[in-house]
């Protein structure tokens, strides 16, 4: 039997998810499904205060302490710092604690029940120091809680000269201030790892994670071991959304330290409250806008002050801030832009990566500001945007010349058509004038999201992907990119199969294991498809070139001929492998000092429309309908792509209207799924998705990035719709009923 050559395209078709069968039968192995002989269970004793000096640690009565493995900072063989960007965050606090839930002591025992009891029996006495909890307090240096001035990182973007614009008499100046709250990723599988560690064999960690090589790098420092002595293996991962980008380095280190000391395999699985309270959340933000527009509705100047709360340690704040900064001026052309961005320290647990990575925060502010400016100009929100959409050949805030084909006005028209925007906008305006207590509104947001690491990030990463063909002709993709639900396995197999004109089932994706896959970089930043996928494509093509170069394969071939060529090649030469390393597309230039240049290889472009109802009696705002229109290059897998959009929009609905982290002295007070309110099946609106497909020449089969994009648009679109329903331009999220009541209460009759 031989497949027809040049079979119908695999890219663009809804092929079955690679690990789908395993996930519906219970066969998929997540980290807590792993058991090793002699394995013991770890637990973490944490600070209950925000800032202070550790005075004493007491191991209470009623626990057979001699049976437990106990690890403190003194047991660390290498550096007591989580290696990420800076080395400021300890694995275990030794003298000072800087946030609630900071780890201090690790415990392990074979009996899970006993280890929980032991954790309750450890008392850490901490002399409190004055903490800082808000962006304002931190910026005002009420206390210096980090470094010299509480500042993890700042950026300045300067394009043109905004200062010359403010005094012009042909411009209108509009100012605004916008806030966003923390948000918990709330993957359903909590963080967890299993570790084996000893001096002979080194350290091996299995875990739920997005970035095996981040963990690898961190463990090298923690144990002061050569890299070949550290092995990190990703297990099936029950969601990440950024929440398993940097934190696994912490929990993996903890489990490995316990394993190192006890000589036994150690498993640590966080319970939900610990995961919510102690691990990272989305950075809260405060953005101030000052915008100058000409009377004919053209942007003349944008001055943006963007500040995020990074929590107690630097973690990834510099990079989150960077993405937020670059997206802060949006998909508009403006000749003069200044963005002052800063990540500041507070005594909250460190904030970190979460889908969108700073962009949802700054885009929320920008889109609300754009609505405000339009109102000041007496233009419709859409007309104001149409006059300012960036076009091919124009420059972004970082002076990146847009070279790809972009048609924001076209996307806007499509989104309006699919959502019935204009008809509804008019109808709601009429209906809202009536006496009904339920008001309706429709609103939108227009935005872009850069794919891949920012600026020179991809160049520094130097990502590598391998492809190996076995003697039976099966192709194995070797990459560190993780499947976390978004479909990495499936799209990589599609890309390779398409490139080699082989059947989808002939391609497999190897499990990310630092012992066997090269470092293709982290699974973040909407880079997996566009950046790593492109490497998959070229590594796959490398296999074919090798076979053709060896004269074993014709230019045009059948699957059987491919198998035969692989068999003959491996017989003669052994393993048939091909590797591909990242090269920046031509003309991509980035200046890190001036924060200027080509921030991203490509952008995804989108227009989202939200329809809401607001009950003026109960102040309940609900999203009734949602249309998401985007251009993400070629769509590799329509069902997975739509799934990314739908899931992201649902998270965006939560971000806008439901998900509030309740803080008490820097400590999360609602770290439960009953009172940290993520939307249930009854709270998510219909989400209708449309893709415009404009193939991107440097992406695999023409694809760009997609994963983070849907997080950016919902919140501003929803608040814009709430504005139509209520007449109030709200400026913060989450927008809770009590907030609506506060503004609208007096308007009640």
């Amino acid at each position, binding site marked *: 039997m031989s497949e027809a050559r040049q079979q119908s395209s695999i890219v663009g078709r809804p092929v079955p998810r690679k690990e789908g069968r395993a996930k*519906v039968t219970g066969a998929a192995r997540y980290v*807590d499904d792993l058991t090793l002989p002699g394995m013991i269970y770890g637990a973490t004793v944490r600070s209950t205060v925000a800032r202070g000096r550790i005075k004493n640690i007491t191991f209470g009565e009623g626990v057979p302490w001699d049976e437990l493995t106990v690890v403190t900072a003194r047991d660390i063989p290498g550096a007591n710092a989580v290696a990420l960007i800076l080395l400021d965050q300890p694995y275990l606090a030794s003298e000072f604690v800087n946030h609630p839930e900071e780890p201090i002591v690790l415990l392990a025992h074979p009996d899970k029940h006993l280890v929980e009891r032991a954790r309750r029996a450890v008392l850490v006495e901490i002399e409190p120091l004055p903490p800082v909890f808000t962006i304002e307090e931190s910026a005002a240096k009420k206390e210096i809680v980090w470094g010299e001035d509480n500042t993890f990182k700042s950026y300045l973007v300067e394009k043109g000269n905004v200062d010359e614009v403010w005094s012009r008499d042909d411009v209108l100046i509009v100012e605004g201030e916008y806030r966003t709250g923390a948000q918990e990723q709330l993957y359903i599988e909590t963080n967890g790892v299993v570790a084996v560690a000893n001096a002979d064999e080194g350290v091996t960690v299995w875990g739920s994670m997005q970035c095996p090589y981040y963990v690898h790098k961190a463990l090298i420092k923690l144990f002061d071991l050569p890299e070949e002595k550290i092995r990190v293996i990703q297990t099936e991962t029950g969601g990440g959304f950024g929440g398993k980008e940097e934190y696994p380095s912490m929990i993996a280190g903890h489990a490995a330290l316990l394993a190192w000391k006890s000589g036994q395999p150690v498993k640590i699985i966080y319970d939900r409250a610990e995961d919510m309270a102690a691990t990272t959340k989305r950075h809260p933000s405060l953005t101030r806008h000052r915008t100058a527009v000409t009377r004919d509705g053209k942007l003349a100047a944008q001055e943006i002050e963007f500040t995020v709360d990074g929590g107690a340690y630097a973690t990834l704040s510099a990079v989150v801030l960077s993405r937020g900064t670059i997206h802060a001026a949006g998909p508009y052309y403006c000749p003069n832009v200044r963005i002052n961005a800063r990540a500041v320290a507070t005594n909250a647990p460190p904030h970190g990566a979460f889908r969108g990575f700073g962009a949802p925060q700054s885009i929320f502010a920008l889109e609300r500001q754009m609505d405000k400016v339009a109102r000041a100009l007496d233009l419709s929100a859409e007309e104001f945007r149409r006059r300012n959409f960036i076009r091919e050949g124009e420059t972004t805030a970082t002076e990146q010349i847009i070279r790809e084909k972009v048609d924001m006005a076209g996307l806007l028209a499509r989104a309006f058509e699919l959502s019935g925007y204009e008809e509804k906008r008019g109808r709601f305006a009429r209906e809202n004038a009536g006496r009904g207590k339920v008001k309706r509104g429709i609103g939108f947001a227009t935005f872009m999201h850069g794919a891949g690491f920012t600026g020179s990030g991809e160049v520094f990463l130097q990502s590598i992907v391998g492809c190996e063909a076995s003697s039976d002709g099966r192709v194995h993709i070797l990459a560190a990119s993780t499947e976390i639900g978004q479909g990495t396995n499936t799209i990589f197999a599609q890309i390779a199969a398409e490139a080699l004109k082989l059947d989808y089932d002939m391609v497999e994706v190897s499990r990310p294991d630092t012992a066997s896959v090269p470092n293709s970089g982290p699974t973040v930043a909407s880079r997996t498809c566009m950046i790593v996928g492109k490497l998959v494509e070229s590594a796959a093509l490398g296999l074919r070139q090798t076979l053709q170069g060896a004269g074993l394969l014709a230019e045009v071939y059948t699957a059987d001929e491919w198998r035969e060529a692989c068999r003959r090649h491996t017989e003669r030469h052994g393993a048939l492998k091909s590797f591909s390393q990242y090269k920046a597309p031509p003309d991509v230039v980035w200046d890190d000092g001036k924060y200027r240049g080509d921030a991203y290889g490509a952008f995804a472009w989108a227009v989202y429309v939200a329809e809401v109802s607001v009950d003026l009696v109960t102040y309940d705002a609900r999203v009734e309908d949602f249309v998401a229109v985007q251009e993400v290059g070629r769509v590799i897998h329509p069902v997975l792509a739509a799934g990314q959009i739908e*899931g992201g929009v649902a998270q965006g609905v939560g971000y806008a209207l439901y998900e509030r982290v309740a803080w008490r002295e820097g400590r999360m007070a609602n770290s439960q799924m009953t009172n940290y309110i*993520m939307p249930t099946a009854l709270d998510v609106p219909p989400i209708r998705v449309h893709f415009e497909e404009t193939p991107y020449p440097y992406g695999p089969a023409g694809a760009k990035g997609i994963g983070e994009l849907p997080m950016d648009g919902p919140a501003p679109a929803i608040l814009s719709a709430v504005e139509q329903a209520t007449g109030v331009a709200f400026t913060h999220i989450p927008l809770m009923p009590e907030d609506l009541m506060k503004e609208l209460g007096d308007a009640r009759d």
Partner: protein
Amino acid sequence: MNGKQKAHIEFTLNGERAEVAFAPHKTLLEVLREDLSLTGTKHGCELGECGTCAVLLDGRSVLSCLVLGLDAEGRSVQTVEGLADAAGLHPLQETFADTGAAQCGYCTPGFLLVAKELLAHNDNPSREEIKEALSGNLCRCTGYIKIYEAVELAAARMRGEEMELPREAVYGLE
């Protein structure tokens, strides 16, 4: 101290008689995962707040994190491992795998069992009925929409109807 004193139960597990001994204060979730090595049942909160650990107890969905193992004595327990039979996957498993209803897959076993319970009582549920029935299961990946579509498609197939997903469900709005 170490659960020396063990409880012992006999029950029907995925259609077969089973016996197991375990520490008496263990939940059914812990017994399934730790004492029977059936790790298909997942846990998301262990406090009854997410629906992830749902299994069927005498055909009815329960949260295994809040049922004692002891309470399974003499009863019938079905987990995700028991959904497929010799003839192959359950229609819900087929559609969850193929239509994007399972992304990270971690909440999937719970959804499958609750959906199975729904279809046992209602072979043609409306979208609203599906939402209501699944409202105790949290999913963070999908926004639920592909899950509804998978349940609808499985229900149709179980009614003996030839059905594929509508084009819009696969390719989005056109």
